[in-house]
């Protein structure tokens, strides 16, 4: 596939919640290219999670359509995996079983499942914690498990809903670096939602800035900072401050 090919295409998408007649977005258009990391940046409550849930087919649209690989999304697919802001681990499953969860549901042979579980637990740095329950782990460790669970499926598309949004600043930066490292090993199409400008610049090849509700596309920015990246190398890059100031202005000023 060539690098410019569109994997996800959101066309005039409209979503309302009947409770309170809330319009979350109305006629939203966007396209996610193959193997790019697209960050979606917007203020809290603007509808980022809702957009991601519709892209995954977890909730239906009220208008327009979303295509993945030219097929209309109506339910979650096996080649798309999601990482949740709330981690979404099963408290009664040990780390190992949580990571194996998607693979078991996909019906992969046990040998494949075991091999992948081990590989991805290693990759996210959870070796030694296979037999722990989520409640015994810190938030950062829990999200490592959430990440391993999604990566283990080796999906074509990763949907990340503010995966580090509930972590403390230090842990958050460590995990951002880990994800940059993993992304470098296995580049894949990724939609990464965040309300942090720094995170959007660090993680994204492009940044889609959304307005407050009803969410509209304020601007689509190219992040011209080369990979491989680390959080430090991004912050030190001369393009970082201009990009950050630009995003700040977009988020702060009301749309013209």
């Amino acid at each position: 596939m060539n690098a410019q090919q569109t994997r996800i295409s959101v066309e005039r998408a409209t979503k309302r919640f009947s409770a309170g007649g809330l319009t979350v977005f109305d006629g939203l258009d966007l396209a996610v290219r193959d193997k790019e990391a697209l960050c979606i940046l917007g203020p809290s409550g603007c509808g980022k999670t809702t957009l991601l849930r519709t892209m995954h087919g977890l909730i239906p649209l009220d208008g327009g359509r979303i295509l993945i690989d030219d097929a209309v999304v109506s339910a979650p697919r096996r080649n798309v995996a999601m990482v949740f802001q709330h981690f979404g681990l099963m408290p009664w499953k040990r780390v190992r079983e949580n990571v194996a969860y998607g693979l078991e549901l996909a019906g992969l042979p046990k040998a494949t499942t075991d091999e992948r579980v081990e590989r991805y637990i290693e990759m996210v740095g959870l070796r030694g914690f296979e037999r722990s329950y989520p409640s015994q782990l810190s938030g950062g460790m829990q999200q490592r498990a959430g990440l391993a669970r999604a990566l283990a499926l080796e999906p074509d598309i990763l949907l990340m809903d503010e995966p580090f949004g509930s972590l403390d600043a230090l842990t958050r930066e460590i995990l951002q670096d880990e994800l940059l490292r993993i992304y470098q090993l296995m580049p894949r199409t990724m939609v990464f939602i965040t309300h942090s400008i720094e995170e959007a610049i660090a993680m994204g090849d492009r940044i889609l800035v959304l307005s407050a509700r009803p969410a509209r596309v304020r601007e689509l920015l190219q992040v011209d900072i080369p990979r491989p990246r680390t959080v430090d190398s991004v912050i030190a890059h001369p393009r970082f401050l201009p990009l950050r100031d630009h995003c700040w202005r977009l988020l702060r000023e009301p749309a013209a």
Partner: protein
Amino acid sequence: MTFDQARVKLEESRPMTAHPSRWRRLRPGDWAVRLGAIALILGVWEFFGPTLNKLILRPPSDIFRAFFELVANGELAEAMSQSFRELFGGLAVALVVGLVLGIASGRWRFVYNAIDPLVSALYSVPAVALIPLLPVAFHSIGDPPRIAAVALFAVFPILINTQQGVRNVDRQLLEVARSFNTSERRLWTDVIIPSATPYLLAGVRLAIGRGLIGMIVAEFFIGLVGLGYLIISYENVFRIDRMFVPVIVVATVGVLMMGFVQWLEGRIAPWLKKEQ
């Protein structure tokens, strides 16, 4: 797939719904206080009880002696085998009925609407008032109506707690399961049943206490047998020392069975005790 918010409110304040317990291990100091308190009460009772009312407050040493008398003459063993048949039969019925109806009504609105009025009505009527009807319903004054009485007392905490457990399943986890393409069967085994288990076990602990009450009351009203018979017959002849023996047996059985369920919870829901 999930229930709308309006439904969740309805049952929130049912007094019978216990919260799932967190496994708490007692420390040696706790045991010392517990045993000390029991010893103190028994000591006060032993030495001052008889001075208050010689007839009713028989000292623990008399009850202890009565216990061995009833063991020796076989009355206690006979009564216990009768009573336990009713207790375990009734609890088994309550468990099956409570689980099936609790799961079904927690999951499907139709079943909930179908059984909720009846459950609310039966739960509001003091169960004791229904016991005299049971021999008529079963055309019997044997074990079946007494087993039914135990089940009647015990079923509601199991049913209501299971229903709550199924209904309180974390919606976010239901969505995670859908996100990973769960099947309906795996949704039950991965999410709904584990999440309802602590509620169910809390219900079983309540059911044991209520089942024991149901057992004794049923033995008073239906046929006069078992431990209930021992209580009534020795009370009638003012052998209060002997009357206390079945009372203490019932209390001990209750404590042991609830402790067993607590232990079971640590075994089948180990993630709860690992919580920090």
